[in-house]
Each structure stands twice: as structure tokens, then as C-alpha cells.
């Protein structure tokens, strides 16, 4: 939001410049535009609009990430004349419903959960994707990904950014000092954990944190999802998402128990943070930091955790911290879970279509990824644009055709479960509630 104000006066100037450029028939000649310093070539397809044409866009991405988002379409704005007004909100998940029902929705919304988009589509609030967006979705995204913007066969939007979940963070130097090896199977992971615990080199092998305001518990759902996908495979995972396989199913309970072997085991948690109960109160953002103190050896969290290490921490295979993907039951398994956003539109005005199309393009993906901190599953993305070793690694996984990608299951489940009882259940579970009771509780909350 911070640069909106800034752009208010830059906007018209840049738009005027852009119009001037268009008039002189310039299409990307760098020298001719030194004053504006914008290469409008890639934007020529989106047309130009009267200055003052606004597109409002609403999402959860805030703070520095929001600044980068604004930066990512700054050139688009100056070349097309569209003024993009991005509004971040922490209350997005509730407010988007309030606004849509109230008849005052934004033009575009960045949905952090496909389920939310589907609900809005089913309620008839968002518009089917324009042809250009649907074409981009088909061109740049794998089938796994396209599914997330599609409801009942109709494409409603293309994905935006992505993250890969299921990384396990560790300190390479701590590993080499103690002679620990990065595990290649889940069994190896368990024996590694036991080794670490026995060695006494750290307080406890794992450090975990579930706290995240009123979304407390979600890191726990990531654990369970990773284990369901790896132990039971993608088919069971998909059925689980649609409740064909119930939470109370032995397969799901097995995953819970496997997770419990780690994070409900007082010998294994919570390194540098307390006992098992402290998991529920430790902020997920702080939970991995004990690795740096040497009081914890392993921390399970997505790629974005890279941004949570204190300044000056090097994230590299030979740096202060690095991460390996949670292994599968067999070596070389290639199933990962992850997250991402989908852009949905509440308006089909030409300027809205232009921005929506731009956001689904490889141009945008490359620009945004280059700005750092995130990746995209867009196939047109050059992995080299990723801002860190870890992100390059993650882009590699996303673009690998052999990878089985599955969206974060809780994000796909109905809100009552995926953003409610599943989270809550994980918190109660870590507080000592039995797996049977917890899974029954979550299953009972599934909307009929």
C-alpha cells in the first residue's frame, strides 16, 4: 500500500510519457525513453488507457511483499496508463465475503486459497477468466496448477506466485560437525532424529511452532499433509481433500501418528523453546530460529521461511542454514506439497482484463521473481531469476515434469475445515487430545 501515494503523482506523468512514446511509434527502443526509463515493448499488447483509469486489487500480501508487488506492475502502469490500487488486508478471508455479498467487491482479488475462489465462483460473484487469461493459464502452467483456478470445468483465474512446502531446515555445519547425513527416506529421518537426540548436541532435535494469530495451527496441517502425500500417495491425498477418504480413515490417522512420533514426542521437541505444549504458543516465524542458537537441529517449514532468518544469515548448502525436502518413503520420491495464489476477477472491464492477463503472463512472473523472495510455477520463468539458491532449487522442483505437485490440502478443503477445525484440531492434538478424538472432531465439522 505504501507506494500507492507515491504513484498518485508519478502515475499521470508516466502515463503521459507512455502516451508520448506510443505516439512516436516507439516499441522498446531504450535510448528513446531514457527519461521514463521504461521498456514498453512487452506491454504493447495490453493497450493504453486514459490516465486515471483505476483497477483495484485486493489480497493478503502485505508489508515488503506488497511493495514488491506494486513494483512488479509499475512499468505496466506507466505503459498502459492504468493505475493499479493494491489493498492488502489481514482480514481478507472474511472481508472478501463481506464485500462480495455487500455488492462492493474489488476488481481483482488474489486468493490465497483455491477453495475461497471456488466458493466465490459458485456463489456467482467472480467472472470466468477472459480468453487471454485462460490461454495464459493453459500455456504457462502444468495441469496440476490449472486445476486450482478451475471450478466445474470453467477457468476462473490463473495462478500467481507459488511456494514449496515440506522443506526441513537445518544447519549444514552442525550436521558436518556431528557427522549427521541428510536423510533420503522417512525411515532415515526418524533414525537421524533418534541419533540427534542421543548425541545430546542440541536441546531437542526438532523445533516447531504453530502460533499464527487466529490461524494458529496451520503449520501443523502442513506436517500432516506432507505425511499423507508421502505415505499414501497423491490419489489418497486427492480423495482426502474431497472427503472421499475421511479424516477418521486409518490412512489419515496413520499420517497423524507418524507426525506425532516427531512433534508429540517429548524427547524430540521442542528444541530451545520448551516442552511439547510450547509448540502451540511459539510463533511459527520464531520457531526455526533456535537452529542458529544450536539448541535445535531440524525445522519443518516452506520456502518462504528463508525470509524469516535474521539479517546476515546465509542460506546456502554451505551457509548458516540450508534445507532439504522432506523425504518420501523411498529414496528419490518426487511428491511435494505447496501453496500459491490465484487471481480472480469481479469485473470484466477492459482495464481489469488487461491487468489480469498481465499477471498471468511469463513477463510478470520473471519481473516479480527477479525482485526477490518468491517464486512462481509459471513455466516461462527462468530459474536463474530466482533470488536465492533455495528458490532456484524450488523452481527446479516446480518445473520438473516428474514432480507430483499437490496444493496445500487445508487450502482446498471447505473453509469450515481447512481454515477452522483442521487448524484448531492440530492445536488441541498437540495439547494432548488423542489422534482418534482429533480426527473425529475434524471429520464432524465437514459441511454436509
Amino acid at each position: 500500500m505504501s507506494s500507492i501515494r507515491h504513484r498518485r503523482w508519478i502515475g499521470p506523468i508516466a502515463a503521459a510519457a507512455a502516451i508520448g512514446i506510443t505516439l512516436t511509434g516507439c516499441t522498446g527502443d531504450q535510448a528513446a525513453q531514457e527519461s521514463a526509463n521504461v521498456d514498453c515493448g512487452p506491454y504493447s499488447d495490453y493497450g493504453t488507457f486514459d490516465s486515471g483509469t483505476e483497477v483495484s486489487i485486493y489480497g493478503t500480501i502485505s508489508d515488503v511483499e506488497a511493495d514488491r508487488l506494486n513494483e512488479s506492475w509499475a512499468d505496466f502502469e506507466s505503459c498502459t496508463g492504468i493505475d493499479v490500487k493494491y489493498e492488502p488486508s489481514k482480514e481478507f478471508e472474511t472481508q472478501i465475503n463481506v464485500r462480495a455479498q455487500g455488492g462492493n467487491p474489488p476488481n481483482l482479488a488474489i486468493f490465497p486459497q483455491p477453495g475461497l475462489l471456488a466458493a466465490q465462483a459458485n456463489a456467482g460473484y467472480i467472472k470466468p477468466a477472459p480468453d487471454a487469461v485462460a490461454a495464459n493459464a493453459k500455456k504457462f502452467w502444468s495441469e496440476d496448477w490449472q486445476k486450482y483456478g478451475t471450478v466445474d470445468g470453467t477457468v476462473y483465474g490463473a495462478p500467481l506466485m507459488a511456494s514449496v512446502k515440506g522443506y526441513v531446515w537445518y544447519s549444514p555445519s552442525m550436521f558436518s560437525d556431528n557427522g549427521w547425513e541428510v536423510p533420503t527416506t522417512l525411515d532415515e529421518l526418524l533414525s537421524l532424529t533418534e541419533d540427534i537426540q542421543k548425541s545430546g548436541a542440541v536441546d531437542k532435535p526438532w523445533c516447531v511452532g504453530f502460533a499464527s494469530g487466529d490461524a494458529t495451527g496451520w503449520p501443523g496441517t502442513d506436517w500432516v499433509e506432507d505425511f499423507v502425500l508421502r505415505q499414501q500417495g497423491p490419489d489418497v491425498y486427492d480423495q482426502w481433500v474431497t472427503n472421499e477418504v475421511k479424516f477418521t480413515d486409518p490412512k489419515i490417522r496413520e499420517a497423524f501418528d507418524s507426525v506425532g512420533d516427531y512433534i508429540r514426542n517429548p524427547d524430540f521437541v521442542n528444541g530451545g523453546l520448551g516442552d511439547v505444549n510450547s509448540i502451540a504458543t511459539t510463533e511459527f516465524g520464531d520457531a526455526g530460529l533456535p537452529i542458529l542458537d544450536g539448541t535445535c537441529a531440524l525445522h519443518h517449514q516452506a520456502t518462504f521461511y528463508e525470509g524469516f532468518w535474521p539479517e546476515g544469515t546465509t542460506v546456502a548448502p554451505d551457509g548458516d542454514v540450508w534445507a532439504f525436502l522432506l523425504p518420501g518413503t523411498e529414496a528419490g520420491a518426487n511428491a511435494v506439497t505447496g501453496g500459491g495464489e490465484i487471481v480472480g476477477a469481479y469485473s470484466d472491464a477492459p482495464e481489469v482484463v488487461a491487468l489480469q492477463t498481465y499477471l498471468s503472463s511469463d513477463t510478470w512472473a520473471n519481473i516479480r521473481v527477479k525482485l526477490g523472495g518468491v517464486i512462481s510455477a509459471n513455466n516461462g520463468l527462468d530459474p536463474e531469476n530466482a533470488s536465492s539458491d533455495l528458490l532456484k532449487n524450488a523452481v527446479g522442483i516446480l518445473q520438473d515434469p516428474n514432480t507430483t505437485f499437490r496444493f496445500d490440502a487445508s487450502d482446498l478443503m471447505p473453509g469450515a475445515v481447512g481454515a477452522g477445525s483442521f487448524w484448531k484440531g492440530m492445536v488441541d492434538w498437540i495439547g494432548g487430545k488423542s489422534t482418534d478424538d482429533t480426527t473425529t472432531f475434524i471429520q464432524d465439522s465437514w459441511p454436509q
Partner: protein
Amino acid sequence: MTTADLIGKIVQLVAGIAVFAAVVGLILFFIDRAPKRGRDVLQLLAFLLPALILLGIGLVYPAIRTAIAAFANSAGEFVGFDNFVWMFTQPEALLTLRNTVIWVILVPTISTIIGLAYANFIDRSRGEKIYKSLIFMPFAISFVGAGIIWKFVYEYRPASRDQIGLLNQILVWFGQDPVLWLQTPPVNTLLLIVVMIWVQTGFAVVVLSAAIKGIPTEQLEAADLDGTNGWQKFTNVTLPGIRGALVVVVTTISIATLKVFDIVRTMTGGNFETSVVANEMYTQAFRALEPGRGSALALILFVLVLPIVIYNIRVLRKQREIR
């Protein structure tokens, strides 16, 4: 903020108030000149209608809609009492109801008792103003701010590290282990209630202190002459003298408590068995997309407040009879 923006805002501010003043002024001006016949009715309407219209669109209509929605599912189909069945069978929902009852019993009672004692103690003492300001301060803080302040008090660090939350530090000073306050039911609900009491007591003090000052001095002096002790004076003179104010305080705090939402939301998010009806209602209606369940909870809230309303109506009736 550019100067133009600032001017725009000031223009809106001034214009808004000016338009409003003009409208009200015109209404009052014209009813003075209304024809004699039916003037009383016109005057009544002029005074009452603006407020009634606003209340009608902003509260009455939504209330009716809510009442209807309580009997529908998320698709808008009539489902009878299903939502209520859900509410009274799901353990989580029952917990929510239980918590709300605990809240609405504890907060008004404790706030009023502390407020009354405090107001009585500081009455006519030196530094009364400062005393009053100190205790009222939390009332001026937003619930979100209060939530932040108390979360800081309840903050937990493992025993091996320095505590940054005062409550756990006090435990540590007494040789105990720190506790995960906000995650430990049922004490966490009580700790959230403490926050609400902390906020509302200032209100009780201010109103009750004003009421105590309204007691005719002669009555107090008469009590002194009769040789009554402090407690007798309090129960025989002060309490009857401030009954009306007590009703106002208890009513206002009870209603505020039933609606409490921000504190629970900022501090625990309704997790760990702390959810209350107002929070669950919001979650169900807007996050879980189950407006029917949300509405059913809202109706329950209304039922819970009925006794308070009825009591106030009776007090009101009595007052009218006196007159």
C-alpha cells in the same frame, strides 16, 4: 499526504457537519411554522423519525434478516432448526455458549464491585482526579490495543530463558515454572475476562463516582450523626442513592461483554476453548461461509440479553409510575 488530499479531507469534514447542521436547523425551523392542526404529530415525527429511519435500515432490517437466515443453510434453503441443533450438539459450539455465560456473569459483577469500591474509597480524597484517570485509561484504549498489552503480560518463554511476560516472571520469582497461560483452559478464559474487566472497570468508576457525588450531603451527614459506621453508611445511604447508576453500569457492561469480539480475536483467535458467541458468529458467517449458523448464534445472543432488557424495562416502568 499531499496538500490536496488534506484539503479534500478537511472539506469533507466541514461540509459533512455543515450539511447536517443545516438539515437539523431547517427541520426545527419548519416545525415551528407548521400549521396548528397536526403540529404535535409533525413535531414528533421531526424529532423522532431521523433516528428511527437510521435504526430501521441499519439495525432493525438486518436483525429481521438475521432471524430469517438462522433457519437457512449456506445455500439459503430453509432447514428448520438444524442450525440450532448444530449449536446445541457440537461440543465446540456448546463450549462457546458456556464461555459466553461465564463472561457475562463475571465481567459485569467484578467490574462493578471493584468500580464501586474504588469509587467509594477515592470519593472526596486527595488526588481523586488522578485516581480516576488512572483507572479509566484502559477504557480509552482500543480492544485491539488492550489485547496487545495483555498478551505481553501473559507472554510465555520456556523456563530456561528469561521471561518477558510479567505474569510468568512473577511465577518464576516464586520458584514456579512458567505457564502457557493463553493455551491452558480453563484459566485462559479467565485471563481474557481479566482484560475485559480491566477495560470496563474504568467506566464503572466514572459513572458510579458521579452518582455518589449526586447523593445529597444531608443524607450522609444525617447518617454520621446517627453514629453509623462506614459500612452501614454505605449500604443504607450510598447504595440506595446510586441504584439507578448501578443499573446503567451493569446493563452497559453486560451488553458490551456479550458482544466482546476483538479481545478474543486478537489474543487467542477463539482457539484453546476460549471462543465466545460473538467471535464464533463472525467466524461461522464470514470465514466458514455458514451464515445460517452465524445467525443462529446471533439469535442466541439476543436471547441471552433479554433478561437484561426486561429488567431495564421494569425499572423504566417504575420510574414512569413515580412521575
